[in-house]
C-alpha cells in the first residue's frame, strides 16, 4: 500500500513536470511568431510558404517543439506508472505554467478577470477528468 502511494506521488510529480513543459511550449510558440508581428489568416493565404517557413525556422519554434515532444514522453511515463484518472486532471495545471511564463518572460499583463477565467477553465478540466468515487 505504501509503495502504491509512493508511486502515485512520483507519477503526480512527473505529470506536473509534463504540464510545465506543455505550458511553457505555448508561449514559446508565440515567441516564434514575434518577429513576424501579428499574423493574419489572409497573410498566410497570400504567402503560405514564406510565412510558415519563417515561423518554423525560428529557435523558439524548435525549443517549443522539443518541449512538446519531451513533455509527451514524460506524460506517457506518468501514465504508465499510475492511473489515467490521476494524471489527466494534473495536466490542467498547464494553463498556470503558461500564465506564469507569459507574465514573467513575455511581460504579459494578466487582469483579475483573466486570472479568474484561467482558474475556472482549470477547475472545469479537473471536474471533467476527475474520477468519481
Amino acid at each position: 500500500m505504501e509503495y502504491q502511494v509512493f508511486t502515485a506521488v512520483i507519477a503526480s510529480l512527473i505529470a506536473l513536470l509534463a504540464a510545465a513543459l506543455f505550458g511553457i511550449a505555448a508561449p514559446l510558440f508565440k515567441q516564434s511568431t514575434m518577429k513576424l508581428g501579428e499574423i493574419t489568416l489572409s497573410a498566410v493565404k497570400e504567402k503560405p510558404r514564406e510565412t510558415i517557413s519563417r515561423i518554423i525556422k525560428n529557435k523558439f519554434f524548435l525549443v517549443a517543439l522539443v518541449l512538446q515532444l519531451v513533455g509527451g514522453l514524460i506524460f506517457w511515463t506518468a501514465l504508465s506508472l499510475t492511473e489515467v484518472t490521476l494524471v489527466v486532471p494534473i495536466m490542467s495545471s498547464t494553463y498556470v505554467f503558461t500564465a506564469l511564463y507569459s507574465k514573467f518572460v513575455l511581460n504579459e499583463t494578466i487582469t483579475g478577470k483573466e486570472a479568474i477565467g484561467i482558474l475556472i477553465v482549470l477547475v472545469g478540466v479537473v471536474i471533467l477528468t476527475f474520477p468519481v468515487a
Partner: protein
Amino acid sequence: MRGPMLAIFAGTLIGVGNPLIKFGMQTAGISEFLFFSISQWFALIANGYFLLGMFSSMAGIGLFIISLSQGKASVLNPISGGVSYIFVIILSGLMLAELITLQKIIGMIVILLGISLLGGSKQWNTKSSQQ
C-alpha cells in the same frame, strides 16, 4: 477571424481530431497501438478517419500558433485547450459511445464559463513586450 475566435476554432479542430484518430484506430482494427509497428502504420495511413483526424489536429495547431501571434498566450492557451476538451467529450460520446455523464456536463459548463470570461476580456491582444 482573430484572437479568441481563432483560438476557439483551433481548439475545435484539435478537439475533433482526437476522437477521429481513435475512431480510425478502432475501424482499422487496432486495439493496442504500437508506434514501432509498421503494419499498424500502414493500416492507419489507409484509414480515412485517422487521416481526417490527423489533418484536423495539425490544422488546429497551425491556427493556434497564428492566434498566438495576435494575442496573449496566457489567455488564448486555456481558451483553445478548454474548447478542445469539450469537443473531445462530445465527439467521443457520439462516435465512440463513451458515456457523457452529469459530471462531464458540469465540467463542460464550467469550462464554457471560464472561456466566456477569457474571450470577453478586452485586453486579449495587449501587446506583450517584444524581445
